């Protein structure tokens, strides 16, 4: 009994930490620019293919080298995506609907590009670290520990950045009041571009950590996207604190569900949780009404 509980706690923590990472990207972009980025999952998958190319698929680089190449590349990708696709649409009166269409279209572009380039067979990426350790009678892979530590570090760094760095504070200002931020001299467009870049970096980091566990396949981004969506809605669109809470709560729910009734029930139970949350609190745990 104790052992099962410990197992659930460990796997819930590590799931929650990665979900945090992935969902924060979606939430940051929505918080600052009010764009719901349907391509987030596909960007994640594209980064996973990038990781595969750099490591097992060709160049055979180590984890740190992959990190050093992939993260800046993802940042650039996110910035260009905002600059070339999102920004031109913002001028339009119904830009919210149009950006949703455009990001969904872009998601399909990435999916099909990955399909054309890499084929339908799933790729495997070798884990960052091999081996297991034993914790109180429970066997935990080192990969799980590494994932947990790296994600927690990244989430903590992000919190520090948002609270202390000038650019991070500018992002929070924009997400609280776009017009006000522009009036006090914050370059709103630059903040948008930066938040898309940062969001892509977070997605890429999540991809690096998760692709050894889940396979890399052209449509593989939709399942994490859906999960991120449940987390972000649960926490409240645009709220960073809400995402932190929701990711860990749902991470533990998932770990418990997997351990008690089996993995196939994860998504149905998440949906029930989501529906219940939305019916009781239509704006999530800590969301603000978007306008």
């Amino acid at each position, binding site marked *: 009994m104790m052992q099962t509980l410990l197992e659930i706690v460990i796997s819930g923590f590590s799931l929650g930490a990665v979900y945090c990472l992935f969902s924060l990207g979606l939430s940051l972009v*929505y918080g600052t620019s009010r764009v*719901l980025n*349907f391509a987030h999952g596909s960007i994640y998958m594209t980064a996973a293919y990038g990781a595969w190319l750099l490591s097992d698929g060709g160049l055979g680089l180590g984890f740190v080298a992959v990190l050093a190449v992939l993260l800046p590349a993802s940042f650039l990708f996110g910035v260009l995506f905002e600059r070339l*696709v999102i920004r*031109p*649409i913002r001028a*339009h*009166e*119904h*830009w*919210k*609907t*149009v*950006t*949703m*269409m*455009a990001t*969904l*279209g*872009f*998601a*399909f*572009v990435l*999916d*099909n*590009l990955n*399909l*054309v380039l890499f084929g339908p067979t799933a790729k495997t990426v070798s884990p960052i670290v091999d081996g297991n350790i034993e914790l109180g009678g429970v066997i935990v892979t080192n990969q799980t520990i590494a994932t947990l530590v790296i994600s927690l570090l990244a989430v903590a760094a992000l919190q520090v950045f948002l609270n202390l760095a000038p650019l991070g504070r500018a992002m929070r200002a924009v997400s609280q009041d776009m017009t006000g931020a522009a009036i006090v001299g914050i370059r709103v467009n630059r903040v948008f571009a930066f938040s898309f870049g940062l969001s892509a970096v977070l997605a890429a980091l999540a991809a690096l950590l998760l692709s050894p566990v889940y396979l890399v396949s052209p*449509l593989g981004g*939709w399942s994490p996207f*859906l999960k991120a*969506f*449940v987390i972000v*809605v649960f926490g409240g*669109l645009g709220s960073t604190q809400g995402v932190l809470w929701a990711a860990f709560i749902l991470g533990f729910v998932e770990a418990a569900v997997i351990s008690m009734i089996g993995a196939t029930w994860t*998504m149905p139970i998440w*949906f029930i949780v*989501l*529906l219940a949350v*939305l*019916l009781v609190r*239509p*704006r999530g745990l800590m969301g603000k*009404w*978007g306008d």
Partner: protein
Amino acid sequence: MASLRMSQPSKTGFFAALLALAALGPFVGSDYFLHILILCFIWTIVVAAWDLSIGYAGIFNFAQLALFAIGSYASAMLSMNLGIPAFWAVLMAGAVTALAGFLVALPCLRLKGEYVALFTFSVHLALPTLLEKGRSFGTGGATGLLGVPPIEVLGVVFRTNNKLGWYYLALCVAALTVWLVYYHIASAKWGRAFVALRDAEGFARSLGVDDQRTKLMLFTISAAITGIGGALYAHYIAVITPRVLGNEFFLLVMVMLSVGGMGRFPGAVLGVFIITIGNEALREFGQYRLLILGLVVVLAAIWLPRGLGGLFDRRAGKGAAP
């Protein structure tokens, strides 16, 4: 205010186009071209219904293909598993899909903008799993249902190879749909109330527009029409699999609507014809076809955010409105 084009669209244009298409039928000759036109008509039904919910009522409904699939499956299952004549199965599929649409719309009423989009899209993403796991309910699992029986009306049997028959059947239903959606609902008082809600929500509310009830009604009607479109598709192709919920169809209807323009008749209908025919022309590009379609969505959003329908606005002087 962006709602000047409230008058009913031209009736003469509608009947002229209908007559021209009806007269065209026997002269098409090739079965392949007839097939493409039949697909155009079926997609017109689906996309016009989508336009009603997303373009006019302003509900970010991304469950359109899920509703389409529910219609197809309902009709196929009713006629195959329960032996109901296909004609009645199609109508009952409309009712089933209306109910499904009603159930999807209920939680949406409490949600705002993006939450609706995410919720409806998750319905779309969850449905294939349900269909694959639902073998014991008669969904046929991952292989789907093969040999959906043909529709029979007044002794005429509409099999897949009866192209000319299907041409007129699909044309009739498509024309009825366009007539109902664009000439009655969208230009009737509550359709207009919805354009007002979409464009200036606070102002419309202050004028006493009851959005909740009408939204529910519009969504349900849109779902019913979509279900009938899906049912027709199932009986025409005679095979229905969870693959209708795959990338391809979703992309197709999205391209149709975004190229055509939401809430701007006849944009969506033009979009359907251009994209259905264009999609066939792209067949030779093989696996690059879906990539190209995705690019078309993105580029249309950037360069033509109002779609082709927006071009008609400008000609009517709407672009000059304050």
